């Protein structure tokens, strides 16, 4: 039994394994269930997150690609656009109809023509360049805006801790 969603997920999986974008690895956790993926994103170079490795979980709805997946980091990530529980707040993951913060362009939001690859690339660039207009983590956003050195210090410490250094 293959649904539209699982076919497309397999197609994307194949594409991501044969031609992965730099710093990104992603695939289903188990071959039994194509609807739960794990992704690993490398901290972007030139950002305080550089050198870090951030695992995340992607959960796809049954009507993917009509609806976007949800994404949650499985590690602590101190970032203005990541909720403290790890959920990622990024416009590409918001379904066309919903706009929790009423500032997003429709073209920035999820559409079936997007893909896992594009999500992960967007998240990677979001990590490098936080958007503090609609922070998910207000404390992190304030720290990022007002006390940048402290923010960077904390992030670097987190990265080192996560790597066991």
């Amino acid at each position, binding site marked *: *039994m*293959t*649904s*539209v*969603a*699982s*076919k*497309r997920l*397999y*197609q*994307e999986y*194949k*594409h991501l*394994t*044969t*031609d992965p974008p730099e710093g990104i690895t992603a695939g289903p956790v*188990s*071959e*039994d*269930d194509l*609807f*739960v993926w794990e992704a690993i994103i490398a901290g972007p170079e030139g950002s305080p997150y550089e050198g870090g490795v951030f695992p995340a979980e992607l959960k796809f*709805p*049954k*009507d993917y*690609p*009509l609806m976007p997946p949800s994404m949650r980091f499985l590690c602590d990530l101190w970032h203005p656009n990541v909720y403290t529980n790890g959920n990622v707040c990024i416009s590409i993951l918001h379904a*066309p*109809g919903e706009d929790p913060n009423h500032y997003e362009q*429709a*073209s920035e939001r999820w*559409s*079936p*023509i997007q*893909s896992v690859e594009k999500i992960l690339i967007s998240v990677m660039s979001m990590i490098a360049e936080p958007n503090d207009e609609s922070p998910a983590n207000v404390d992190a956003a304030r720290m990022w805006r007002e006390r940048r050195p402290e923010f960077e210090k904390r992030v670097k410490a987190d990265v080192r801790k996560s790597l066991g250094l």
Partner: protein
Amino acid sequence: MDDAFDIPDPTDWLETPLKDFSPLENSLHCDICKEFYDTPMITSCCHTFCSKCIRTCLSANGKCPSCQAADQASKLRNNCIMQTVVEQFLVARPAALDVARKEQQVGEQAKKPGKRKRTVLDSDDVAQEERSGRMTRRKSKRIAASQTSEPETIEIEDSDAEDGDEAYAPEKEADDGLMECLFGCGKRIKPEEMDTHLDRCEQEKREASKAKSRTPVNITNHRPPAAPDKPAPERISELNVSLLNDKKLRQKLEDAGIPSWGARQLVIKRHTEWVNIWNANCDSGGKKSQRELLRDLDSWERTQGGRAPNQNGPSSSIMRKDFDGVGWASNNRQDFSRLIADAKRKKSNPSAEQPATKAVDMVDAEPQSANGVHMDGSDDLRPQPLSDQKHHLPDDNEQPDRSYENNAEALSSIRDKVEATNEGRHYEPQINAGFEPATTNGDHDPTTSTEAPTTTPVGVEHEALLLSSHWGSTRKDEHLSAHLPSSPVKVPMFAVPARPFSDVDGGNVS
């Protein structure tokens, strides 16, 4: 999983000399399903998607996925040229990819001469493996598979195979003063005759390609427009659900021939999906039957509809990898051992229940069918009873199986019946063992019995004919007799089935 899902992918081209084919192939993909366009449709905003994909999107939010412009499914138009391009690309793809991979291997081997014993290790997979550290096991497997499975598609001499001109150029150097045909038909012509040749060559080529392309196109997609024998199905429109109450809505679904169970929301979703499936099929010229469309709907039902697995956790229909088999076995030990015991018991006396009930059925059926039918005495019309071999009647005299020959009891019972039917009286079936052998050397004459049908009502004869054909098919089930007990049982020799049977061959039963 790899084999079941071996999908052509643009990344196949990346490591070959033809890596520019990757974006080309990508542009032949639908942005929604990321596969080759299937019945591409163009929107009002001039974006192209598969029919089913764009219909699903528009029914969900009424916007083009690419530019978010509002659009309606009714405004979609077929993008015929894209359809043709995709079909032709798919025809050309395997050969081109093969050539590209061969070329790449040649290049690889030339680059590292003498590094290893090529004569021994000159296998394609090894070369592939060595070339790229990043290549996954799956890919190398796939490459190997494609190389072993379709070697016959390699047509290197075909200049259309995008092989680049450099391999082709040296052949032009021939000193006979002739020029090779510019269209690559392989002929060599005097320069002054080139023009006329080209005209002819072009014509020939066009016709050849037309003939060549017709087959694959028909196989994959195109139905000639407006086939006279089967009119294209008409598109259906979406329901205005707000105007329909629950009952009417369900009625609409039943009228459409699709299931109408479930909550109202599900029913609406199902109808929307059905409209999309149906109309996408219309777009493609109706290449699928309604049965196939219903199967598609069913697969939607099982993946996204009312019978979809629970969203939490993996679908229940698939056994998990970490399934605790031992735990399950110990928890359900009782049930398993009961089933095993049942099976063993059945195996030890297979003949006990089934045949016995059959025999009883036959006897029970007897009283209702006792009238008239017994008069049928002709040999060829005689049904073969489902009983022991010894009681088989001869079909005709040539039949080699004469197991009844030395069985006086059986012979006597046969004669008894033949006499009875010849005289037109009813034959009362009895336990065969109770019969006394009447005459031991009286010859069985089939010709006498053929007179019997004259006394038989026409309807009965007809029925008997049907009957014999019916039994004829069951007679092949020789194994049935093996299950029957060898002791004589209460089986009437001239019985009709208790239930009326229908003529499966389509003939009319009066």
